[in-house]
């Protein structure tokens, strides 16, 4: 039996260890404490490093240190803690260091609450830190996907030399589901750029200061090209019941789960509703949405926020003549499938008119 | 009337008490004990078991983290 019934937070931790992650630095914050606790209990067993840092700021900088040596490294936090990591994330992206950062979002702004929410979409996809950089964002919607995307996050991080954000929320972190874990990865890629001491070779340095504006500009465009390449090769998106749909819900993560429940109900009423679920939030699946827009003219974006992914959907569909509506439940309210099926009902009927 | 001659009565505000037992522990006169009945919050609150022994020393009220102890004089 290789299935285990485990929680999202534990699942990420276990998957990370299997993906060869050997350093974890983090600071407690609900609703992701179990992730660090799992690391505390298990990382040292595989010869890895678990260190509870003095703050999130310190954690992300420890990540920079470990990443600079070529070690697979992870940190995790939740909204306020992730805000404190923004400077570090900007550095990581600028350094082009691979690392995985988990954000189990909670209701905000401020201290907010610890219920599931999706208010950090902008921060995640636009780079809440300073300067011209982005962080690719993966948004799993099941515990199995948490496992798979954790592994994928480490791979993408190494391949593209970039920090990767894994974006969930309290529901994703706390819920348990059956999971099949991938085999532990033993073959890690070479990282010729890593700082491991000059040894017999030439010395190297990783600088963040690039005083020459033209060099900095080149670096910025290089990052843009990298993101473009990822957009072409790495965009992930699930289409659910879209084959015959004439109305599409767009939702990710927890809301996508709820949307599926609602869509099932709506289908029973005979509404041809389907779901477009972006799995990568950056790069955003523009092309897929545009393709969908040949078939579907009515879109309903559903988020546990006041409307953030909404902008990406509008940007993707700006040229197409479609309607984009929005239903949001921000601040830590978990909407129910019933509620959302009613919303679908309303917009669907309106479309029919 | 000197303090010695005073009569003191200790009461527990049942629904404020979380049954931590600190008052019971620190009452030198063993005035307090555990109630067998749960309160509204689901705790077994403290209750005076030897009320007459109370000397009004206020130890229980001092240690009670929940202001569940009332001490009366007279």
């Amino acid at each position, binding site marked *: 039996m290789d299935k285990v*019934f485990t929680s999202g937070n534990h699942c990420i931790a276990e998957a990370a260890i299997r993906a060869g992650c050997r350093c974890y630095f983090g600071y407690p914050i609900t609703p992701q404490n179990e992730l660090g606790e799992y690391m505390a209990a298990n990382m040292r067993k595989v010869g890895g490093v678990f260190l509870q840092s003095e703050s999130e700021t310190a954690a992300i900088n420890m990540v920079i240190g470990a990443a600079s040596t070529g070690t697979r490294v992870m940190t995790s936090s939740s909204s306020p803690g992730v805000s404190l990591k923004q400077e570090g994330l900007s550095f990581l992206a600028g350094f082009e260091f691979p690392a995985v950062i988990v954000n189990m979002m909670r209701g905000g702004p401020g201290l907010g609450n*610890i219920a599931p929410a999706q208010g950090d979409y902008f921060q995640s996809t636009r780079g809440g830190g300073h300067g011209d950089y982005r962080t690719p964002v993966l948004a799993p919607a099941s515990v199995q996907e948490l496992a798979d995307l954790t592994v994928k996050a480490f791979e993408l991080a190494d391949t593209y030399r970039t920090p990767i954000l894994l974006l969930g929320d309290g529901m994703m972190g706390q819920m*348990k589901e059956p999971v099949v874990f991938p085999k532990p990865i033993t073959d890690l890629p070479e990282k010729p750029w890593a700082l491991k001491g000059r040894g017999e070779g030439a010395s190297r340095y990783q600088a963040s200061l690039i005083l020459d504006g033209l060099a900095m500009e080149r670096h910025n465009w290089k990052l843009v090209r990298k993101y473009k390449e990822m957009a072409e090769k790495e965009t992930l998106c699930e289409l659910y019941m879209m084959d015959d749909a004439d109305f599409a819900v767009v939702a990710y993560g927890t809301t996508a*789960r*709820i949307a599926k429940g609602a869509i*099932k109900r709506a289908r029973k009423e005979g509404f041809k509703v389907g779901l477009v679920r972006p799995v990568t939030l950056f790069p955003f699946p523009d092309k897929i949405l545009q393709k969908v827009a040949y078939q579907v003219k009515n879109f309903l974006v559903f988020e546990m926020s006041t409307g953030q992914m909404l902008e990406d959907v509008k940007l993707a569909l700006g040229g197409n003549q479609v309607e984009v509506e929005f239903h949001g439940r921000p601040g830590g309210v978990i909407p129910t499938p019933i509620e959302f099926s009613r919303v679908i009902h309303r917009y669907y009927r309106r479309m029919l008119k | 009337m000197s303090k010695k001659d005073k009569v003191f009565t200790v009461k527990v505000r049942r629904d404020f008490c979380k049954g931590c037992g600190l008052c019971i522990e620190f009452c030198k006169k063993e005035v307090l004990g555990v109630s067998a009945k749960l309160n509204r919050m689901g705790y077994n609150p403290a209750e005076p078991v030897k009320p007459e022994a109370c000397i009004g020393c206020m130890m229980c009220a001092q240690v009670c983290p929940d202001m569940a102890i009332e001490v009366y004089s007279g």
Partner: protein
Amino acid sequence: MIVKTLCAGSGGQGVMTLANIMGNAAMFQGFHSTYLPAYGAAMRGGTANCTLTIADEEIASPVASAPDIVVALNQPSAVVFINRLVPGGKLIYDSSVAEEIPERLDIDVFSIPASDIAIELGGVRSANMVMLGAFAKLAGVPSHEAIFTSLEYLMGKKKKLVEISRQAVIRGTEYFS
């Protein structure tokens, strides 16, 4: 088939364990299952609850706004959560500890003196296992085999605990046979 159950009780009563064993058992039997605990500040003050969903298809939302079953290990839980049940839903409660249950006519109410049965078996701590047995019986899933596999998987080395739990589960099941 999809069954959503809300399990609730006070801190130390083992609600989470109950649901976790059920979730595992459902998985072992090949079902889809999700388990969602209420966490954080909501936990303080001694109450705990979680939602368990068992289905033979992909489970969309792990949340139960209107559960099919409520398993209440104490009185406050029964009182609070009875209102959330779907019409036609089932409430199972431990009648050894809960006394007055509000009336609701559109549901079925099942009582079982779980704590008393547990005490008979050697300790009130396995009241949750008695409830588990009753719950499984009324839900129709998962099977005894799956539950026992799950028990052994989760309690592993604690042979004695497994044995007591097993018996408690059986007593719970039989109560409604």
